[in-house]
């Protein structure tokens, strides 16, 4: 699925996120909650006000996990195995529909706002494919 060129582009893009994991993650999550309110239903225990410590903390967690996946593009299944279990058995985020797609869209919007023209069609394509692959792995254990 991911070509050699895709992997290179993903690693390059992620290189530009380094050091900003919390900002990028928090921005993506906030946008997701704002644009797709049903996603908030998975966080009833969170303070969901803008800039909250929980959103920042969780955003950072998500982006760091994605960064880890990017270091293991040849073995996403294994790299994300624990997260896959978590999402399937504990969190039970709906795998078929929106939440993972919505997060992907919002993360890409954040990258696009930060990179502008550098978020080229080729980069866009590679990141979209990567996020699809991540979603597929996270959904592997659902049933």
């Amino acid at each position, binding site marked *: 699925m991911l070509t050699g060129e895709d992997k290179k582009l993903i690693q390059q893009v992620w290189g530009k996120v380094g050091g900003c994991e919390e900002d990028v993650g928090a921005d993506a999550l*906030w946008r997701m909650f704002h*644009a797709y309110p049903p996603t908030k239903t998975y966080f009833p225990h969170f303070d969901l006000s803008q800039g909250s410590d929980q959103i920042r903390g969780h955003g950072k967690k998500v982006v760091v996990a994605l960064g880890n996946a990017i270091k293991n593009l040849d073995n996403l299944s294994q790299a994300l195995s624990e997260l896959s279990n978590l999402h399937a058995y504990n969190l039970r985020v709906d795998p078929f529909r929106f939440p993972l797609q919505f997060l992907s869209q919002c993360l890409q*919007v954040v990258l696009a*706002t930060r*990179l*502008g023209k550098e978020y080229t*069609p080729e980069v866009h394509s590679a990141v979209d494919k990567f996020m699809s692959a991540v979603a597929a792995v996270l959904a592997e254990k659902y049933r």
Partner: protein
Amino acid sequence: MVHWSAEEKQLIASVWAKVNVEECGAEALARLLIVYPWTQRFFDNFGNLSSPTAIIGNPKVRAHGKKVLTSFGEAIKNLDNLKVTYSKLSELHCDKLHVDPENFRLLGDILVIVLAAHFTKDFTPACQATWQKLVGLVAHALAHKYH
């Protein structure tokens, strides 16, 4: 009946005023064909779509992208009446073009990303939320007459 707040209408209008319809339309359609290559199935007669460079430079892609986004402009002038505005186009996409409505959602999301890359910091979360709502409703209106 869809409700648009004054703030939402303002966010739509202020972004749209700065959009170059031809450039933005061409970009959005090109990205659809690049990021989701199976959508090329609808454009067999467009000539060379063999690479991202070919797609971006393809004059038919540019022209069609402009057409699509110009039509989007009509939606913006008729925010309270999207289903009626898109009634004929909906029938066309169903009966003549045979386009799966899922593709409207894909193009809508791509348009939002194109706007984000263009406006960068100015494409705030509130802006994005409003535009995601708009593209979602346009996609819905275009699917409305399917049977």
